[in-house]
């Protein structure tokens, strides 16, 4: 065998005193790390194959396993890190673009962690959500500009199509193809139970899930996979995907091997053909073009459904959002640079885009300054990790947030970032039947419901502490936020004061 420059990143550490050789690790590892040696009645493992997904660790009934970071080291170098060198070795051997999955893991500032929330003391009463009513319901869509009356003076209902959510969260777009049938079913059922929405992503909608239509956002992306009249009319809203936070400016590529059976039928493309989403929509080169698509979709759905336009947070996001707010779209979704993905070129994922906190603050301010904030609702996504992030996002100007990575973690994802291999041991980012069945939607949807219900409780506690009894009253209320460890410029963009001010 030729020299392999790469040493395994992780070691599978097995406590032989606790291992009972039940072989569950061996049976559950799609990467074939573990092996049972019958002659010695012992398990052994091949560290090189381990992706650190923790399936074996979680299922080991005696807790005999743990995965540890390999301390094999190169000569220390602050400039040429081991990670950089390993990537270089990998490319020198493959000649290919490095691929990665899930969100940007690099050490960029997380602004949510540098923002603190306010609470009431003495002069204004805080509210106890366990004793007093507390509203977390939100409505998404364009707001009427004025009150209209008919000849008899009665108020005319001129409210454009709206989405009503029981809490300010939705599951963001993950296509059937990038995630499994069972993952989709878990999201759809959870959305229905919670009174929120999930998003089909760009892979079309499986015929089994049309029954969740009122809790579904159907996506139209550049590949236009699976788009037909029934599809557009089946959802509560339609999302035009322009960009994705994990990979702004580039398209998608689901390899032909994954286009099998139901996925081929749902995407309306032949089995085995690569599903390539072009980088741009080839019919959208301007806001005017976008407006055409927005109104084409409205026309196709009889002006019954709000249209969402989803963009990645990039440098000119505020100006772009201003254009979108004038395009006839009802909702703008902004996806920050930490947003997840099933596969993206590593360099794009790790180096393109801007943080959602700054993008969101910039967009909200721009739309308010231009007097068009009520034209649209804003949905912020791209690594919403907790209810505190949600409260901060709403105070920065979002109407609602998109959650995806957190939802997948609730379903078992351990962020091993190997989605692109298609061998997800948790049955999420895979189409291999034996792996897909590992995610039982009956269990999965309850975990999602639990997570979001818990977050809803926490949101009530946090806003109650501020003396606010409705999440809508927090929207854009940046006085409830203070920065720590931020520069004057950062505070200016976020539109918040420094802690102590």
């Amino acid at each position, binding site marked *: 065998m030729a020299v392999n420059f790469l040493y395994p990143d992780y070691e599978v550490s097995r406590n032989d*005193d*606790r*291992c*009972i050789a*039940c*072989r*569950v690790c061996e*049976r*559950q590892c799609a990467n074939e790390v573990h092996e049972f040696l019958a002659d010695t*009645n012992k398990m052994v493992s091949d560290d090189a194959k381990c992706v650190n997904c923790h399936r074996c660790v*979680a*299922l080991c*009934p*005696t*807790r*005999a396993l743990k995965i540890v970071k390999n301390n094999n080291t190169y000569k220390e170098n602050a400039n040429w890190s081991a990670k950089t060198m390993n990537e270089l070795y990998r490319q020198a051997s493959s000649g290919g673009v490095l691929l990665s999955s899930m969100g940007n893991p690099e050490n960029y500032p997380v602004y949510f962690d540098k923002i603190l929330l306010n609470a009431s003391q003495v002069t204004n009463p805080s509210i106890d959500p366990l004793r007093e009513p507390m509203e977390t319901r939100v409505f998404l869509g364009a707001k009427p500009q004025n009150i209209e009356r008919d000849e008899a003076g009665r108020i005319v209902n001129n409210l454009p199509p709206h989405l009503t959510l029981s809490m300010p969260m939705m599951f963001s777009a993950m296509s059937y193809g990038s995630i499994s049938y069972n993952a989709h079913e878990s999201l759809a059922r959870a959305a229905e139970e919670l009174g929120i929405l999930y998003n089909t992503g760009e892979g079309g909608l499986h015929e089994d899930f049309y029954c969740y239509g009122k809790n579904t956002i159907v996506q139209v992306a550049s590949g236009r996979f699976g788009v037909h009249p029934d599809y557009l009319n089946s959802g509560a809203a339609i999302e035009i995907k322009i960009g994705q936070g994990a990979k702004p400016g580039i398209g998608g590529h689901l390899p032909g091997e994954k286009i099998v059976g139901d996925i081929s039928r749902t995407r309306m493309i032949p089995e085995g053909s690569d599903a390539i989403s072009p980088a741009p929509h080839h019919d959208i080169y301007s806001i005017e073009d976008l407006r055409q698509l927005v109104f084409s979709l409205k026309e196709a759905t009889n002006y019954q459904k709000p249209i969402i336009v989803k963009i990645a947070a990039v440098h000119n996001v505020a100006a772009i959002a201003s254009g979108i707010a004038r395009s006839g779209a009802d909702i703008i979704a902004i996806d920050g640079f930490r947003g997840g993905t099933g596969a993206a070129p590593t360099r794009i994922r790790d180096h393109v885009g801007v943080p959602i906190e700054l993008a969101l603050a910039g967009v909200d301010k721009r739309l308010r300054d231009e007097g068009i904030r009520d034209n649209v609702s804003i949905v912020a996504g791209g690594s919403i990790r907790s209810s505190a992030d949600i409260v901060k996002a709403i105070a920065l100007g979002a109407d609602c947030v998109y959650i995806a990575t957190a939802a997948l973690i609730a379903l078992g994802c351990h962020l091993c970032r190997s989605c692109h291999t298609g061998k997800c041991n948790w049955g999420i980012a895979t189409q291999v*039947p*034996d792996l897909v*069945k*590992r995610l*039982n939607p*009956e*269990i999965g949807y309850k975990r999602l419901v639990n997570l979001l219900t818990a977050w809803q409780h926490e949101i009530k506690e946090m806003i109650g502490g501020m003396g606010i009894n409705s999440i809508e009253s927090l929207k854009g209320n940046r006085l409830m936020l203070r920065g720590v460890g931020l520069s004057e410029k950062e505070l200016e963009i976020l539109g918040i004061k420094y802690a102590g001010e």
Partner: protein
Amino acid sequence: MKRVYVNEKWCLGCHLCEYYCAFGESNKKDMARALKDIKINPKIWIEEKDGVSFAVSCRHCKEPLCVKSCITGALTIKDGVVTINKDKCISCYTCILICPYGAVSPSEDGAVQKCELCVKTTWGTPACVEGCPNGAIVFEERG
């Protein structure tokens, strides 16, 4: 009466039910100590072939053939649970031959063994159900 039911749709063939069964039977607190270097002889086991797998254990039939066939009265129905009294079992294995589900098996000491829904263990409820990672084994009332 609550019984153990299996659903092959969600069975992963991980065999954890077998180990939890043996652990439950051991009445020890720690699975590593209970099962280390032991070849288990569980009362539930996985049948698998051609990508299909499912757990098999006693159905606790309303009219159990094993009880009818037992010549010493070692097998009886107690509160719906088909129970074995090992002291009375003479290891004739008629029950093993007659059980249409193959759910009765010989134990190490010769007497037959079978799932008794953990009523005699410290778990109290079936350990296989609690140990199943994917909800493929359930303990529920189905009339």
